[in-house]
């Protein structure tokens, strides 16, 4: 029987958060939402600007006649903080949009094409260590790998955990700012550069 491989099979990782979600049911503009998320990820170093290597591993669009369309988009984002050779941040973002339909809305006396639907973001954040397997595959270092990873580098691990945690919440904040949901960080993400769902 064929074996199914998972990308976390041969690496050690630390889950920053098991599962965090944002869900919203209202009108919004699908393309603008996608642009905000995409641009945020590129600006923060989570993906390249070149579209053909951007880590969107799956895009499914299911058309239905009455209920509205369904979309599944998987982003498998990675970032190596400050060219670190030991730690890597992995952010898996699953978009799931249901009941997606086209509609028209009026703002500031102008008619805009928009969408209604229920977008949901499922976000999984994992801090991967020894991502290249340099320690684990080295004939000498492999004997000290566990000691270093779990004891001697512990302070580093916590520092990266805090930083990653902060970045994860900033991504969520950027999405929440677009959807005009309540936020709690001191400054809203996006610096009012991108439109929110009300084209402001």
């Amino acid at each position, binding site marked *: 029987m064929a074996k199914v491989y998972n990308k976390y099979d041969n690496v050690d990782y630390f889950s920053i958060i098991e599962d965090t979600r944002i869900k919203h049911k209202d009108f919004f503009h699908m393309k603008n939402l996608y642009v905000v998320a995409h641009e945020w990820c590129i600006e923060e170093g989570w993906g390249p*600007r070149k579209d053909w290597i951007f880590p969107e591993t799956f895009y499914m669009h299911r058309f239905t006649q009455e209920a509205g369309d369904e979309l599944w988009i998987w982003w498998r984002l990675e970032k190596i903080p400050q*060219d670190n050779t030991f730690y890597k941040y992995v952010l898996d973002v699953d978009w799931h949009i249901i009941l997606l339909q086209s509609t028209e809305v009026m703002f500031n006396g102008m008619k805009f094409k928009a969408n209604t639907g229920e977008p949901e973001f499922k976000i999984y954040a994992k801090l991967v260590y020894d991502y290249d397997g340099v320690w684990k595959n080295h004939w000498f270092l492999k004997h000290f790998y566990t000691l270093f990873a779990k004891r001697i580098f512990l302070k580093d691990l916590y520092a990266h955990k805090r930083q990653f945690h902060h970045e994860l919440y900033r991504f969520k904040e950027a999405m929440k700012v677009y959807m005009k949901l309540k936020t709690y960080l001191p400054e809203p993400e996006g610096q009012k550069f991108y439109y929110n769902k009300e084209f402001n």
Partner: protein
Amino acid sequence: MVSLDRPMPFPMNLKYRGVWDYEGLYQLMVQWFEDQGYEFHERVFKHKVPSPLGFEQELGWYGWRKVNAYVKFWIYVYWHVWDIKEVEVVKDGKKKKMVQARLFIEFSGKVELDWQNMFTGSKFVVAIQDWMNKYVLHKTITGGWEDELYYRIHKLFYSCKEFLNMETVHNASAHRY
């Protein structure tokens, strides 16, 4: 082996939302490339009309310059402008056509080593080049050429900020290069 393409680690990003002179900024940047002796190319020019808020444009530029027989500088500029609407403003008593839009510009670059492929042909020559880049020229590459490219791109970045009359028009490294 030391890589012969040495890109800038992080791009510089500029964002602006408001009324600005598109034509002026476009000309300023092209002129800067030409004044600095770069061969300038516009690789991409995309135009889209998506919403009543205005049209969208995406531009991709690059320019290169030979620094010496071994080194070449490459500068890349990526523009993305959303919701462009042409407006007329009165500036210094004169009517002027400007645009109201959201502007995003990304500046990046790389230092290309051995652009003439002088060190090719045998493994021995390649090994000599690697040794030279790693030990003899290491400081000149990292602290010299890479630094120079960074500050030159920074000057272009600063010129754009100055043109857009942004709040932080202050160039701390104006004396460099």
